[in-house]
């Protein structure tokens, strides 16, 4: 028992602090029934210089799938292959008002119907390191080695999910998830990382909110 208590305390101590905020704007009623599915896509339209991290998209999709038995999430790569070439960076729609024209393509419409796609969720944003300070020096000698110093850095994760409803070809709502936190790494012979899981926090907040938004119960 004491062993587990120690592990819990060390885990809590080694985790940096994270502040997160989630905001939601609902434009119309939502709901999902058995047989319908959702896909989470990262915004990568040209000529954007950046794109949402693949790891973040996978994290949101995985969390959403696990959080509710009612929501079936199609993996993004599978979806892009099944609907190729309509959701590639150069061809994907970037506004909801382009969705009706796209859904009018017979072959694409039949494919979307086959996979039961109800909601397209576009996730835009990134996690950035906003500042860092300190330094750590390490040395190795024949008698041993070690590190000494202190590092700290701040990260900011800012993401926005836009939900398109394929039933009426319009935007159903938007959810934004922001998180910021500071990580530390003191080193006295051995570096001890105290990491603020900023991106993970933003992912969890976004997927929880998305689940509530889509199920709408």
């Amino acid at each position: 028992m004491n062993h587990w208590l120690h592990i819990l305390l060390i885990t809590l101590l080694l985790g940096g602090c994270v502040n997160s905020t989630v905001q939601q704007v609902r434009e119309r009623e939502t709901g999902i029934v058995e047989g319908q599915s959702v896909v989470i896509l990262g915004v990568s339209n040209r000529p954007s210089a950046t794109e949402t991290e693949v790891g973040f998209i996978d994290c949101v999709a995985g969390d959403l799938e696990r959080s509710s038995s009612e929501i079936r999430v199609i993996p993004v790569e599978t979806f892009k292959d099944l609907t190729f070439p309509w959701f590639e960076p150069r061809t994907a729609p970037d506004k909801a008002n382009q969705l009706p024209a796209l859904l009018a393509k017979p072959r694409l419409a039949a494919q979307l119907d086959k996979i039961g796609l109800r909601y397209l969720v576009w996730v835009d944003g990134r996690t950035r390191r906003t500042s860092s300070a300190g330094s750590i020096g390490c040395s190795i000698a024949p008698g041993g080695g070690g590190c000494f110093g202190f590092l700290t850095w701040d990260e900011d994760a800012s993401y926005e999910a836009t939900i398109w409803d394929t039933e009426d070809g319009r935007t159903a709502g938007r959810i934004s998830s922001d998180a910021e936190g500071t990580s530390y790494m003191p080193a006295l012979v051995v570096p001890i990382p105290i990491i603020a899981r900023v991106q993970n926090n933003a992912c969890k907040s976004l997927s929880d909110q998305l689940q509530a938004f889509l199920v709408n119960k």
Partner: protein
Amino acid sequence: MKPKYRHSSIAHSPPAGRSSLLAALLCLVVAITAGCGTVQVELESNFPVPLVEPLPATVGIVISEDLLSFRHDEEIADAGSYELTLGRAPIDLFNSLGAGVFGSYQLLESVPEDGAFDGYLRPNIQQIQFAVPKQTRSEYYEVWIRFDFEFLDEEGTPLSNWMLPSYGKANEGDYGNAGAALQAAALSACRDAMAFFSLNLSSQPNAKPWLEQTLGGANSAAPPAISKEETR
């Protein structure tokens, strides 16, 4: 018979601390020298079949030896040397493209003499360029591929060409090493070319004479042109 190698006593083996230090140094040397080698990338992928209305034509897609053996070598200052080969990618790519875009197709090594096809498409790669994060001070490996699609009539006479530039990028943070990221960027560029080709072939001015011939002059049988506004 005595074993050839044997520790005479435990006292002769190095102390545990020193052996782990040696192991750590060895790992460091291996890690540093690994970064100095050539990054070899061979494209391998199953490309999806485009979900478009196929053109009512029987087309021979000529995959030349030049395309199959295409190789791009580049040495980038402070970022090592790179070697990119296509492997089976051209065969997979044009098999999928042919299956989606044309009513009937066949991959060929050269233009046959029997004239069994309405027309021929001979793809080639004119140029490949790439950039690594160190060069652009970004997080992305980027690949540009300039495809050259040559349109030939039913007798194998060249009619026109379509130079199609494509682009792909991959975030280095999403992949374990430079080779994997560069391969992802190159595959993304191939998909980009496939996507653009399949959606814009019927509206491409350079392909018009060929389309008119392969479709028996009935260009109206081709699917309607897909405008940029419609696809974006």
